[in-house]
């Protein structure tokens, strides 16, 4: 098992990074009830860990006996009926699923699963909660229709089920849903916190950390705890008695993006843009989200950019990212950004150096 999983805090008490949040959540458990929750925060900040710890705290060990199933839903829309298959994790107390996997039919999934859970309402035995918990991942990827239908079902079945929603950005969750939940912001851990975690793991694994080693990993992790721990383990595997200036190997796709950035800065022409396009395709094919590509590309470009241009380039990056989210062909917008950058950069070069 990777350290990421091995040293994941199982209960709210053991949580190191978001102690404050964990304490608040514990209060809900003590009060035997909780409202709908919406966890949001950047990836690798510990949302899922918190949610799992919370559920464990609520239902005890029974919540850890989960099984994976591919459930088929029979959807009857009135005009037509069809089957929808979706993988979900369930224990006797909760269900976890990723409704956005159903594509544009996600709204039926949301309705159906909640209704079904409401039907099989657990009996209020002593010491047991009278509700089930439904964990919905990646709510920000739900279609607007699904979110609207969620809004109604949330209220209607609140007696028998609690929703825990989890997403990266709350801005893509509709206002209505947000207002029905208690919003829990799980921010990215600060570098100090990451160092703290790494040292904790080092102690558990009986490792000697040279001074500043953890800090260096934390700095490279981009405030992503998952990444930090993985880097840490990579370092351990590659060379155990850590050398004082050891650095974890870079992420491959980030390396690739920085190569692209170098390409862009070295030549600005439609031909170069065409070769950049091929590289973008390579990244996209390998499931790298286009937003991440754009973000990483921007940071890489920023490193070598004149201060005057930074502001403008950032603005355009934001512009094209917005466009990208509106459309469906990410490659168009990535390319458009690169073209724009090339244009700006070239103009700047001509103006400066003639």
């Amino acid at each position: 098992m990777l350290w990421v999983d091995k040293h994941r805090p199982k209960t709210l008490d053991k949580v190191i990074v978001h102690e404050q949040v964990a304490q608040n959540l514990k209060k809900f458990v003590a009060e035997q009830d909780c409202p709908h929750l919406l966890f949001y925060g950047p990836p690798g900040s510990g949302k899922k860990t918190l949610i799992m710890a919370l559920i464990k705290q609520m239902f005890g060990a029974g919540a850890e006996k989960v099984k994976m199933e591919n459930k088929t839903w029979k959807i009857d829309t009135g005009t037509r009926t069809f089957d929808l298959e979706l993988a979900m994790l369930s224990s006797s107390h909760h269900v976890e699923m990723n409704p956005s996997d159903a594509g544009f039919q996600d709204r039926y999934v949301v309705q159906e699963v909640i209704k079904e859970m409401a039907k099989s309402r657990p009996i209020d035995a002593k010491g047991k909660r009278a509700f089930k918990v439904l964990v919905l991942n990646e709510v920000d990827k739900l279609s607007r229709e699904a979110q609207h239908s969620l809004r109604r079902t949330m209220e209607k079945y609140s007696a028998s089920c609690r929703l825990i929603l989890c997403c990266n950005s709350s801005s893509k969750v509709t206002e209505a849903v947000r207002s029905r939940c208690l919003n829990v912001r799980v921010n990215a851990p600060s570098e100090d916190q990451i160092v703290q975690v790494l040292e904790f793991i080092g102690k558990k694994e009986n490792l000697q950390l040279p001074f500043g080693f953890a800090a260096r990993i934390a700095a490279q992790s981009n405030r992503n705890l998952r990444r930090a721990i993985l880097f840490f383990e990579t370092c351990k595997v590659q060379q155990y008695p850590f050398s004082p200036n050891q650095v974890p190997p870079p992420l491959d796709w980030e390396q690739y993006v920085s190569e692209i950035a170098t390409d862009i800065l070295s030549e600005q022409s439609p031909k170069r843009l065409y070769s950049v396009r091929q590289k973008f395709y390579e990244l996209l094919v390998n499931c790298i989200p286009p937003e991440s590509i754009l973000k990483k590309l921007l940071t890489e470009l920023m490193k070598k950019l004149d201060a005057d241009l930074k502001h403008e380039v950032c603005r355009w990056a934001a512009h094209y990212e917005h466009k990208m989210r509106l459309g469906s062909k990410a490659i168009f917008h990535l390319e458009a950004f690169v073209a724009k950058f090339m244009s700006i950069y070239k103009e700047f070069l001509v103006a400066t150096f003639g």
Partner: protein
Amino acid sequence: MEVDMDMPDPEELEWMESNGLLPEEEEYAYFDDPEEGFLPAAAVASKPQVAAASPLKPADEVSEANLKRPPPPPPPEQEEERSKRRNVEREDPVDEDWLRYSPPPAVEVVAEKTVSRFASEIQGDSMPVTAPNGERVYAKLATEKLVSEVIEGAGRRASNANHTGLLSESFQSLTMQAEQDALAKALLESTDTQYVEGCPVTPVVTEQLWVEKYAPHSFTELLSDEHTNREVLLWLKQWDSCVFGSHIRATSDDTLSALRQHSCAIQKNSSNRSFFSKIKGGYVTSRDSMPQNESGSNSEDLKNNFNKKPSVDNVPEQKVLLLCGPAGLGKTTLAHVAAKHCGYHVVEINASDDRSASSIEPKILDVVQMNSIMSDSKPKCLVIDEIDGALGDGKGAVEVILKMINAEKNKNSDRSTGTDETPVQKASTRKGHKIAKLLRPIICICNDLYAPALRKLRQVAKVHIFVQPTISRVVNRLKYICKKEGFKTSSIALSALADYTECDIRSCLNTLQFLNKKREALNISGFESQVIGRKDMSKSIFDVWKQVLQKKKPKRAEMADSHVSGDKDIGSLFSLISNRGDYDVTMDGIHENLLRLSYHDPMLQKTVKCLDVLGVSDSLTQYVYRTQHMSIQAYQPSIAITISRMVAQVEKPNIEWPKALQRCRAVLLEKKDTLKTWQNRMSPLISRHLSVESFVEDIASPFLHILSPLSLRPVALNLQSERAKNELVQLVDTMVAYSVTYRNTKFEPQERANGSIVPTDIPSLSLDPPISDIISFKGYQSEHIGLSLAVKQVLVHEVEKQKIMKDSAGKLLNQTSEAVTSEVSTVTCQEAAAVTALDSSKGSSKLKSATVPMQFNSASSLRGKDMSPAKKPSSRPTDFFHSFRKERPAGAKSHNDAAQQGATVQRDLRPLIFKYNEGYTNAVKRPVRVRDLLL
């Protein structure tokens, strides 16, 4: 020269060759249009009173099309004209061809006098004439004058033709005579059996559509591209040896002459394009004879070729011809004319027929395999028109054809040696066979080559794409027709018309006829306002891309008012794109090909603009999909036009299908799927924290590093140092937890590429969920080091072991939780939960303690119940286990409980020992788990 290949008949060629330089006079006889040529002669041969019936074709040529427009004997003034023209022909029969194209002179003028379908229209005496196919016309009894004129004309010609030559009479006239005899016989028969009274009806308009009236009837009259014509004819000729077999020399004289003439035409095409200049130059003979010679020598080669290959069934390689091109260029006409030219009887199946696979199959079989039993039997040639038309129905035909072709291929591979029997015989012997064989040419005609229904056919068929004939050719033909019809036009107007309709001859003719009816003149300026409707054409997607990305060469006339022409361009582009309709693909294609254009853009402003509008188009599409406001799609063409205005170049773009984007989507889905299935295989406790994105972004690269530690040595687990052992255990544990393993692959291409010789027998191991693929970008050298093969093998072994232990542990866990009594349950349950949570190396020891009661239980009950040893040692301990569990009385548990606890401790102390008494292996009766053996 290719064309010579068409000439099928070696003997004819030989004969021609022996004649050497053909005298001018005789040449005329050959060059002359076959129809025209024999008409006067026919008139002579037949008796005076039936002279008027001469238009009826000889029996073997009869078809409805021909009968509808019976050409009467030419009036004297025309005869004169022709003799004038004859001079012209000598100089350049080629370019003359299409101009001279002599359709039957105006029917409604002359037909009233001589031949008509209605007796009432004929003045004076008339007699009914019925053709063998039942078509009936009334022929006027000839007057003395007419007959004499005809005779005179024919006589003159005959003398010309007979001037020199080996035969006393020209070959042509001999055949004509024979035909005439046959005709006369047929007429005699029909006259005494049938008599129908003339039906007095209201005068019917006998005017035909010009399109039909002036349709080309011989190969030389075709307007379409010469090259295509020749190719089609060549293809058809390749069938000769198969279709006609031994009677190959039956190729009619006119075919040969036309071919010959044509071959000259092509040779001369390059040298003297305009014959007007030639006319002024006067009488040129030397030029003419040269090509003759050349064609002669070429034909010798050809003859040799023919001799080398005896008539085994050497059918052409591609058995189906696919003609495609926009409407109105003469595809159907070409197919008909060429087939007729090669001596086939054309059978047409078009969109109006029933075209389901079941109904079309017998039809095709009929044509392709059967021989008509009629004496005049011509082989049939199948023309399937508009094969792309209806998708569902058209497919039927395509499927049948494909089936036949494929069947044939299989058969050919079976028996490669040819047989002596002629193909015709073969067909009859094969009749019993289920799978049909293609023995006759099939010509398919379509508009859109890239129609989905044709995808498979495209691969096996010989494809010919029609190109527009040059405007001047079309205009000249139009001019000729207008003159014939007495419709006044200017050539400028006609060329404008041709341009406007994109050389669609059919639409040109229809327009002209319409205007003629309305007594309006053709007006250049008012095309838009005039009756000429623009065709609602949808072009192939490649055409659309081409139009967008390629600038039209500005013509001189348009240069003057450039903004006007610009408007027109935009308009046509707009309609083009919106007619195509498939905006998604259109935009993809533009995007794909955009950056490969060589437009001038130093500051990349154009590129930025183009990509920006493409982005707009993308969001527009997305919005439309989401909201279903389809009407907004109307703004898509303007986006493409913007791009076109920005980057279109004059030179021809090299357009490619947008494969990259589609491939990207497909591969992306595939990879996501792989990752998802992998995720499902993992323990849910781990997989719940993973998403595809987070895995790819954060985990993949470190994970691969972790999976290939540098310190690992290829030694078995028990031989390693303590630390290495720990590392290995942890690695195996990780691999099991993430359900990763190594798997055999045949060989890795990279290794081979490096030059190191890797024998393919040695298996190389690669990660089972191909995680390493995720980080392999093109042109990127990753820092990951693969483990050596030996280490991998060790790992595979360990992983398998670990898996078995885990499985058995899981199984036991389930059984325990069922079987243990309530007293133990709380404890065990917690333990079990802990086991799954903690890593299994630690867990297994705890697990043992948890499962021991069970084992002991069974063991003890075994001892109690089954005193005598079982006859056969069981290979599957679990079965044993089960059978006892079932039999065990429910109460037994509680009895044994106390004993169990003690026994557990006891049994844990001593290891598992197998004691073999000599020759008595049945001693091992305790159920033993693989897990225990592995530890």
